[in-house]
C-alpha cells in the first residue's frame, strides 16, 4: 500500500467538452469534494488505479476557455499551474477538447503546452465523428502539436483505458512549446522577459506579468520585476491581442491538414431547437412551464418521502425511549439527537429533486438559452441573464447560489444578484412554511383542482421573488458603481444529458449539504436540548415548588407531571433567553417559546421546526411523542385560550421567515465573496427591518 506511486493529474478543458464525464469515467465513485484552502471553489478530486503499483490522483479543475482567468474559479486553474511548489501542482495535464469545437478548444491547449508541463490531449465525443462528417488524421495532429492524443468518448466508455496507459507513461511526453509564439510577437521584448526570470518557462513569466493578482510564491525581487513589467499596460494588451491571433493562426494551420468536416452531413437540429426555445413567445412559455414543473417536483413529489421521514423519526424517538435504560443520555438521544438528524434527513428529497432538475438543464445546454432569453429583462433590474441560474439555485440554498454568481462578469450586476439571492425561497424555509401552512391554512380545494395550501406556498415563493426584484431595482438606483461589461456566453450544442453525470452531481451536492449544514444543525439541536433541560436553581427545585403550589387542589399524576415539565422549561436556560427577547417579538405575536426557535434559526432556518419540536417535546409528558405538527397544533396560548399557532401569528411568522436574513452561513459567504463586511451587514439590517415591520403589520391587522 505505502509503496504505491501516485501520479498527480490535472484535468482541464473548456466548459461543455465533457470533461466531467471523463473525470467520472476515470474515478467512478472514488471522488471527494473539498474546498481549496482559503476560498470556496469546489475542489473535485478522485483516485484512479493505473496499474498494480501506480495510481493517479486526478483533480478536476473548473472549466475555462483560456488560461487568462475572467472569474475566481478560473483564477484557480492559473494558480494551480503556476506554482510548482504547491502540493496540487500536476505531474501531467490532461486537456479535454470536444470534436466539434476543436478549434476554439485548442487555444487553451496551446497555452497550457507553453508552460512546459507534460500534457496529454484528449479529443472527446469521437462517437459523433461519423454522424457529423468529421475526419481526423491523429498521427499528423500529434506531430504538429508535439503531444500524445487519445481519442475518447466518455459516454460510450471509449478510450479510457488508453488514456490510463498514456498517463502511466507521462515522462515520455514532449514538452516543447508549439510555434515559438513569443518570438513572433516581439523577440526583443520577450528576450528581456526571459532574462528577467531565467528560472521560469517564458510563457509562465508572461502570465505572471499579464495578470492583476499577486503570486505568493514569488520572491520580493521577482515581485518588483513583475511590477516594472506591468507598468506598460498598453503594450501588454497589444501583445495579448497579438498572441491570441497568432495562436489561432497556428491552430488553423495545424487543422487545415489533419482535420476536415464534410459540411453536407451537418444537421440543423440545433437551429430548429434554437428557433423554438428562444422564440419571442414560445421561449418564455417553455421556460415558465419548466419552472412550474420544477416547483411541482419540489412541493408535490417531495412531500411523500418527507412525510415518511418525519413519521419514521418520530417513531424512532419513542422506540429509543422504550429500548434504552432511562436516564439523561437516553433523553438526549431521543429528544435532541434523533429529531436533530431527522431535521437534516427530511431535506434530502427536495434538494435531490432540485439539483436533478438544475443539472439536467445545464447538461442539455438549455441553461445558456435561458441566459440569452432573460438577459435584457434582468438588466432592467440591474442584473444579468446569468443571474437567472443563481436565482433558481437559490430555491435550494443561497450559499451555492451566491457562489454560482461568480461567472457574472460585471461587478455591479454580480453584487446586486448576491444581495437579493437570500430573498428567494431556499429549501431551508420550506419546512418552516410547510408546517405553518399545515397549521393555519385549511386543506381545501379551490375551483376544484387547486389546493389552498399549495396556493399559499406558491404565493410565498412569488413573494420571495417579488422582494428580490424590487430590492434589485432599488439597489440598481442607489448603488453607484461603474463596471466594465463582460458578457460573452457560449451557446453549446444540445446534448442528451448523461444519467451518470447527473447522478454523481446530485449525490455530491446532497452529500455536501448533509455533511455541511447537517453537522451544524445536529450540534445546535444538542445544545438546544441541553439548554432546555437544564437551568439555574429554580429549575432544580421545580418538583418541590409545584408540589407546594398545588397542595390544596387535587390533580392526577399525569397533570402534575405536565405542570412540572412546563415550569421546568420556563425556568431553564433557554427559557430565560426566550423571555429576554419576548418584549421585542411580542408585537409580532410571538411568545418566548417561539423566541427560542427564532434565536436558534440564525444558525439555519430549518432549525426552527426542530427547535420547536425539541421545546414542545421537553414540555410534553414524556410518554406522548407525536409528530412535530401534532405537538405544535396542541400548543395553547394561555392568555387567550386559543391555539398558539393561530392565523395572525402564523401569517406573521411566514412573513418574518420570508424576508429576514437568518442564515449565518449565507452572511459568511457574502462577506467572503464581496470581500467586505459592508454588504452582509446591509443584508442583515435591511432584510431584518423589512421582516419585522411586515410581521408586526400583518399580526396587528389580522388579529
Amino acid at each position, binding site marked *: 500500500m505505502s509503496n504505491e506511486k501516485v501520479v498527480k493529474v490535472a484535468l482541464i478543458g473548456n466548459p461543455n467538452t465533457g470533461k466531467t464525464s471523463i473525470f467520472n469515467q476515470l474515478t467512478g465513485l472514488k471522488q471527494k469534494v473539498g474546498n481549496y484552502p482559503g476560498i470556496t471553489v469546489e475542489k473535485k478530486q478522485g483516485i484512479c488505479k493505473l496499474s498494480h503499483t501506480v495510481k493517479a490522483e486526478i483533480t478536476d479543475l473548473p472549466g475555462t476557455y483560456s488560461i487568462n482567468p475572467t472569474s475566481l474559479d478560473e483564477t484557480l486553474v492559473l494558480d494551480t499551474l503556476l506554482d510548482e511548489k504547491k502540493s496540487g501542482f500536476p505531474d501531467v495535464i490532461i486537456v479535454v477538447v470536444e470534436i466539434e469545437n476543436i478549434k476554439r478548444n485548442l487555444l487553451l491547449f496551446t497555452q497550457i503546452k507553453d508552460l512546459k508541463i507534460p500534457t496529454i490531449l484528449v479529443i472527446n465525443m469521437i462517437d459523433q465523428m461519423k454522424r457529423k462528417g468529421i475526419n481526423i488524421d491523429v498521427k499528423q495532429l500529434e506531430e504538429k502539436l508535439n503531444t500524445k492524443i487519445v481519442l475518447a468518448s466518455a459516454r460510450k466508455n471509449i478510450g479510457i483505458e488508453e488514456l490510463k496507459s498514456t498517463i502511466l507513461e507521462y515522462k515520455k511526453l514532449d514538452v516543447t512549446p508549439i510555434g515559438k509564439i513569443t518570438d513572433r510577437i516581439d523577440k526583443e521584448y520577450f528576450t528581456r522577459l526571459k532574462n528577467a526570470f531565467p528560472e521560469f518557462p517564458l510563457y509562465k513569466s508572461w502570465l505572471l506579468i499579464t495578470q492583476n493578482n499577486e503570486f505568493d510564491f514569488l520572491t520580493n525581487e521577482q515581485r518588483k520585476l513583475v511590477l516594472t513589467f506591468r507598468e506598460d499596460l498598453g503594450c501588454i494588451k497589444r501583445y495579448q491581442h497579438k498572441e491570441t491571433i497568432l495562436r489561432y493562426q497556428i491552430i488553423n494551420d495545424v487543422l487545415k491538414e489533419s482535420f476536415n468536416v464534410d459540411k453536407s452531413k451537418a444537421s440543423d437540429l440545433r437551429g430548429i431547437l434554437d428557433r423554438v426555445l428562444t422564440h419571442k413567445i414560445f421561449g418564455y412559455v417553455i421556460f415558465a412551464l419548466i419552472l412550474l414543473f420544477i416547483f411541482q417536483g419540489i412541493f408535490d413529489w417531495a412531500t411523500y418521502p418527507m412525510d415518511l421521514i418525519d413519521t419514521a423519526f418520530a417513531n424512532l424517538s419513542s422506540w429509543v425511549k422504550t429500548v434504552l435504560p432511562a436516564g439523561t443520555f437516553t433523553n438526549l438521544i431521543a429528544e435532541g439527537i434523533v429529531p436533530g438528524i431527522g431535521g437534516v434527513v427530511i431535506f434530502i428529497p427536495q434538494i435531490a429533486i432540485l439539483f436533478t432538475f438544475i443539472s439536467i438543464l445545464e447538461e442539455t445546454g438549455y441553461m445558456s438559452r435561458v441566459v440569452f432569453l432573460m438577459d435584457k429583462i434582468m438588466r432592467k433590474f440591474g442584473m444579468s441573464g446569468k443571474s437567472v441560474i443563481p436565482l433558481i439555485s437559490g430555491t435550494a440554498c443561497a450559499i451555492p447560489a451566491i457562489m454560482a454568481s461568480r461567472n457574472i462578469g460585471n461587478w455591479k450586476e454580480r453584487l446586486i444578484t448576491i444581495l437579493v439571492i437570500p430573498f428567494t425561497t431556499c429549501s431551508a424555509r420550506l419546512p418552516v412554511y410547510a408546517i405553518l401552512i399545515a397549521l393555519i391554512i385549511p386543506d381545501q380545494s379551490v375551483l376544484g383542482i387547486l389546493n389552498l395550501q399549495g396556493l399559499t406556498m406558491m404565493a410565498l415563493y412569488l413573494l420571495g421573488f417579488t422582494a428580490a426584484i424590487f430590492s434589485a431595482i432599488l439597489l440598481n438606483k442607489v448603488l453607484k458603481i461603474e463596471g466594465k461589461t463582460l458578457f460573452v456566453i457560449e451557446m453549446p450544442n444540445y446534448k442528451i444529458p448523461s444519467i451518470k453525470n447527473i447522478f454523481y452531481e446530485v449525490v455530491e451536492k446532497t452529500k455536501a449539504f448533509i455533511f455541511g449544514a447537517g453537522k451544524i444543525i445536529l450540534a445546535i439541536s444538542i*445544545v438546544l436540548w441541553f439548554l432546555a433541560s437544564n437551568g439555574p436553581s429554580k429549575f432544580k427545585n421545580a418538583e418541590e415548588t409545584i408540589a407546594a403550589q398545588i397542595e390544596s387542589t387535587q390533580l392526577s399524576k399525569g397533570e402534575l407531571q405536565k405542570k412540572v415539565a412546563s415550569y421546568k422549561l420556563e425556568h431553564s436556560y433557554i427559557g430565560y433567553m426566550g423571555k429576554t427577547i419576548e418584549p421585542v417579538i411580542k408585537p409580532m405575536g410571538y411568545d418566548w417559546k417561539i423566541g427560542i426557535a427564532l434565536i436558534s434559526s440564525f444558525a439555519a432556518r430549518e432549525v426552527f421546526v426542530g427547535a420547536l419540536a425539541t421545546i414542545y417535546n421537553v414540555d410534553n409528558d414524556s410518554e406522548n411523542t407525536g409528530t412535530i405538527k401534532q405537538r405544535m397544533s396542541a400548543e395553547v396560548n394561555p392568555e387567550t385560550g386559543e391555539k398558539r399557532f393561530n392565523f395572525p401569528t402564523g401569517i406573521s411568522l411566514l412573513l418574518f421567515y420570508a424576508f429576514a436574513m437568518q442564515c449565518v452561513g449565507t452572511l459568511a459567504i457574502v462577506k467572503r465573496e464581496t470581500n467586505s463586511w459592508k454588504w452582509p451587514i446591509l443584508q442583515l439590517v435591511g432584510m431584518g427591518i423589512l421582516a419585522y415591520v411586515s410581521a408586526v403589520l400583518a399580526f396587528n391587522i389580522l388579529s
Partner: protein
Amino acid sequence: MQDILTYIALGLAIGFLVKKYFFKTKKKGKCDSDCGC
C-alpha cells in the same frame, strides 16, 4: 454514567460550533480592481 456521556456530547457539539464560527480565519482577497473576487 449517562450524565458523563451527555456532557461529552454537549462538549463536542459546542466545540464544533465554536470552531465553525469563531475560528474561520484565513482568506485574504487578492484583488486590486473592482472585480470583487
